[in-house]
Each structure stands twice: as C-alpha cells, then as structure tokens.
C-alpha cells in the first residue's frame, strides 16, 4: 500500500514538471534536445503521469453533506442526535416489525436481527446483530442507508439512534432501556463478536491448492454418488420461468 501511495504522491510532482517541459520542447523544435531528453527521462520514471483534464467541478459543502451519510467504526460520520431503546421500541413496532418481528426475530424469510448468541460453531449458525456483527456503527450506517426496505432515507437521525439502541437492547448489548445512545458513545459500544473476524488468509491456509502436478491418471478409487439434487427437488421447473414477450 505505502509503495503505491508514494508513487501517487510522486506522480503529482512529476506531472507538474513534465508538462511544461514537453510543451516547451514542442514549441521550439530544434535546440531543445536536453529539455526533451529530461522530459523523456521523467516520463520513463513515471509511466502514467496524472493528467488534469479540466473536467468536473468542485463539490460544494452542502452537496457533500447531503450524500456523505456513511458511518465508520471509529465514529466518523455519526451525526448529532440521540435516542433510547424505549423510544426505539415504539418506532420499531411501527416501521420495522412487519418484516423483522416485534423483537427482531424475523418474519418469514426476512432477516432475524436478534438472538443466536453462541451459535457460530453450530451446524446451523444464527448470524444476527448480537451474535455476529462486529461493529455497532454498522447498524446505524445500514439503517440510515437502506431501511425501512422500500422507504429508505425516511428516518431522522434521532430515530436511527433510537432504533439502533432498541436493536442493541434486543441483543443484550445495551442492558438499560433508557440508556441514551448518541454521537459520542455509539462508536464505543463493544459488540460481542467484535473479535470474530480476520483478514483473508487463503494464500496461507489454502496453500495446498497451489499444486505443481495435479494427478491425471488413476487418481484414487472409483467414486460413488453420495448426494443428488433431484432427491431434494427444489429446482424451479423450466416451464416456470418468467414470461418473455
């Protein structure tokens, strides 16, 4: 990472130098060989100097504020506001429970938001906010971006704090129904599965998949069928496909 960053920073400097030189060379064709060579050399060192194309315009602060609604684990992006689980309960019943159930238990195939604690090693794990999600800020960020399903961006900042508090309360992360969740303390909430994730390690953990000479002939005993999709029979019928006119 640091290498490419340095390269990027370097490119800006090179561009500032290269362009005027190249132009000068073009204007006075003979007698500027040295300048041309220098420009060539600089170009060779930085094969893709950034070019300012003069396209686009500066973004205004109001425009950035309107679209920049993301929230990071360190709290960057959290807006001013507050809410409690008690306040969130009423909101949740009104705006969320049709799909997610009164306590976040999920209706039909809609996502389960609570419970499942300690099931991550089970045969059928229950991955909820409380049992799985590493960061409380993600609850705020996601609700703010995408919920309620079908009416996104309709909640106020306070409402999202209250709903986040309710969801954390349903998951026993916040015990007190009247605890006020706000801009200053949401990022400090420690989630039960905060340490449950690690970065992609396939290069190491699956090193055995890089094989020099995979077996081509007489590779083990003759296999037997141990499972069949048609025994489960959940594939849509070809005739049941969408109509195309």
């Amino acid at each position, binding site marked *: *990472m640091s290498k*490419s*960053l*340095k390269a*990027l*920073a370097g490119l800006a400097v090179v561009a500032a130098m290269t362009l005027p030189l190249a132009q000068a060379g073009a204007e006075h064709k003979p007698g500027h060989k040295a300048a041309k060579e220098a420009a060539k050399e600089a170009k060779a060192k930085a094969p*893709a100097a950034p070019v*300012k*194309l003069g*396209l*686009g*315009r*500066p*973004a205004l602060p109001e*425009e*950035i504020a309107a*679209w*920049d*609604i*993301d*929230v990071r*684990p360190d709290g960057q992006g959290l807006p001013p506001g507050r809410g409690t689980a008690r306040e969130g309960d009423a909101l949740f019943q009104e705006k969320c429970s049709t799909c997610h159930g009164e306590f976040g238990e999920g209706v039909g195939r*809609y996502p389960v938001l609570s419970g499942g604690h300690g099931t991550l090693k089970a045969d059928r*794990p229950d991955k909820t*906010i409380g049992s*799985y999600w*590493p*960061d409380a800020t*993600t609850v705020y*960020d*996601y609700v703010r*971006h*995408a919920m309620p399903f079908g009416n*996104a961006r309709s909640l106020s900042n306070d409402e999202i704090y209250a709903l986040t508090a309710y969801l954390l309360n349903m998951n026993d992360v916040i015990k007190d129904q009247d605890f006020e969740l706000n801009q200053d303390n949401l990022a400090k909430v420690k989630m039960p599965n905060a340490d449950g*994730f*690690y*970065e*992609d*390690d*396939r290069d190491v953990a*699956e090193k055995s*998949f*890089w094989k020099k000479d*995979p077996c*081509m002939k*007489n*590779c083990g005993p*003759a*296999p*037997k*069928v*141990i*499972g*069949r*999709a*048609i025994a489960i029979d*959940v594939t849509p019928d*070809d005739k049941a*496909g*969408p109509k195309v006119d």
Partner: protein
Amino acid sequence: MSEKPKSDVLDRRRFLGAAGLGAAGLAGAGAMLPSLAKAGPAPTPDPAITEIQDWNRYLGDGVDRRPYGVPSKFEKDVIRRDVSWLTASPESSVNFTPLHALDGIITPSGVCFERHHGGIAEIDPAQHRLMIHGLVDTPLVFTMDDIKRMPRINKIYFLECAANSGMEWRGAQLNGCQFTHGMIHNVMYTGVTLKTLLEQAGVKSNAKWLLLEGADSAGMDRSLPLEKALDDVMIAYAMNGEALRPENGYPLRAVIPGWQGNLWVKWLRRIEVGDMPWQTREETSKYTDLMPDGRARKYTFVMDAKSVITSPSPQAPLKHKGRNVLTGIAWSGRGTVKRVDVSMDGGRNWVEARIDGPVLNKSIVRFYVDFDWNGEELMLQSRAIDETGYVQPTKAELRKIRGVNSVYHNNGIQTWLVHPDGVTENVEIA
C-alpha cells in the same frame, strides 16, 4: 458401471487430442457413425426438405419492424431464471445466467444475471452525478458527459457473485448449471480507469481505502483498498458496446476485475477517500465467510479459479450417441486460466481440454472436449488451473478447511452424472 468402457473413451480421447485430429480422424480410430451404419427400412424423404416451408414462400419482416432486435422465438427458454425460495423479496434477490445454453465467452447483455438489494434503480443519466470527496485535494462532482470526455478503455472481465454455488456447500441441491453456477457474466466494458478519476481530485498521501456507494434504494456501499483502485479498477458506462442495462447499473458502475461481484457497485454515485475501511453491512454481516471455529474471514475479495461444464449438464442432456461436444467455462480472479482438465469418470482420470477463443486476464475462457459416447454412464468434472498455479479444488478439499457454513466462495469441482439415456444430474460423489 464397469471400469473398462470409460477408460476406452478416455484413451480414445487422449489419442485424438494428442494426434490433433478432429472428426476426420475418428474413422481412422475405428469409430463408426451409427446413423450410417444402421441397416433398416428404406429411408423416407425429409419433409423439411421436400415441402416448401412458409419462410421460403412468404415475405418476412421488413427492416422497419425490429429497431432493437431480440432473439428468435425458438430461443425463448434461454432466459434468466430465479429461485423464489432463496430470498424474502424479489427486490433484494438474484437471478441466474442461462449458462447451459450459451457459448463463446461473451454473455449477451439481456441474460446477464442480476443481483439487486433494493430493486433496479431507473436513473435519468442527465440527473446522475458522481462525487469524489474525503481525503482529496479538491472534492469534485462529475456529470455523465464529463466522464465520457475522459480517455476510455475497453476490457473484458467476468463478474461472479461471491455467493455463486453457495447453495451447494452442504451438497447437491439445484439441478442445473444455470442455478449452481449462473451468478456470473462476462462482458466487455467501456469506461475510464478509476485512477484517472482519482487524479482529477488529487488523492492525499494518507489515503488507504475508498468507499464506493450506489444511488439505489439500498445505498449499496463497500470499502475498496486504494491499491486495487489504482491497479485495474474501472468505472464503466457501457457493456458489450452499448450503454449499461438498468439492471447492470445504468448509467455508471464500478468494475473490480477478479473480485467478488458485490464490490462492483452499480448506479455508482459517490466515492469517498479515507484511511480505513468502513465496515459496512456488506463487508461485516454479509460477504464474510464463517469458518468451523466460529470465526470468520473478512475482505475475501478475490474469486478463485473455477470452472463448470455447461453442456452436457442437467438442462442440456446428451441427445445423441457417437460424436458429442462437451463444453464449459473457466475463470480465475487471480489472472488468466492456463489449463482446464476434464474427467469423465469422476476425477480418476483426466484429459486436457481444448481452450478456444480469447484467453484474457480475469475473463471467462471457453473449453471443449470432442468425444464419443456409447451410452455408458459418465461422471463429468472439470478442473481449472490458473497462471499462479492454483488448481481448482474439490468440494471435499474446500470443506475440509472451511466447513459448510462459509456461504461464499464455493469454487469446488462440479460433478454431473450422465445416465445411459442421456439424462444428466447434479450429484456429489466420494
């Protein structure tokens, strides 16, 4: 199923492959075309030839009737299909590319699989904006016209959903490569490099990550390492020569070569530059891979080498004895596909398939095995090998490391069981 006929087929195949012979070599190898060899009743003339057909007599449609053409009505089954029980709503769901009926390496735009989280955003391009802000010298706003005035590139890449084949972790479940492997498409994109866009704003030296966000009702957002962004990420407005389809992100989408489809943010409207990942829902709750010890991998971006035989397959059974064409696709997010092996006996013996057509970096390749089939049972498998030396693993090898609850990144070898009547099914073998 006896051992001998299978190895005979394989041996003949190996011979044909080694000698570089096509159909002409077949007779030399001692095979006979059954339709010619059969003795029977005197042949009757074929009415498809002896009777004048409508299309041979009457005028067809004029050039003014099909301003934007669609496939022949006889191809009406070559369509995307969905599996309604998979998800709670069709707006946050997925459908599948009809791989079994396609050939070559380019997926026709109209059947490229779809995956939305808040339905298809229908965006007026005149009202679409792309904003770049955060750790930049100058936060900028671009119109579509601005972006189309920038230097363009054309690239062919596969886009595979991280969940492709995810329903098969616990065993054979869906009967057809459209359903088991159809969350993938491969098209030519036209657009600009993300590097070009970032250079306009000027990325600050402490920048490490970008947030990409869509304009749809899901506000899809993902964190992308800056290193990848500057390497080969492009921002595309065209696919297969024309504007993106609405369901594929019209008017603007991210193209993240070799990486899981979820990162390819559609209806892209905002890029924020930062110094750490955002841990959005799509990289914490989703697109993290639960392992047997109860912990989970995160940022599993790359899609590993994978392949599937698209015909024969459950939706494309064998219909003829004698000469047949086996075909399939292979791909790798780590680079180009170097080789594809095919087995007809469930992985005991392998032959190298013939790759035909363009072999491109992080693109689908097309492979073939031309073979004879005498009606014996077959257990078909394909195995991709990429330029890094990665060999597509079996499902058992994957499960040994990952268990069955990792949801995503199932690139295990697929087995099709071909019955003596040609019917082909999705099976697990051991």
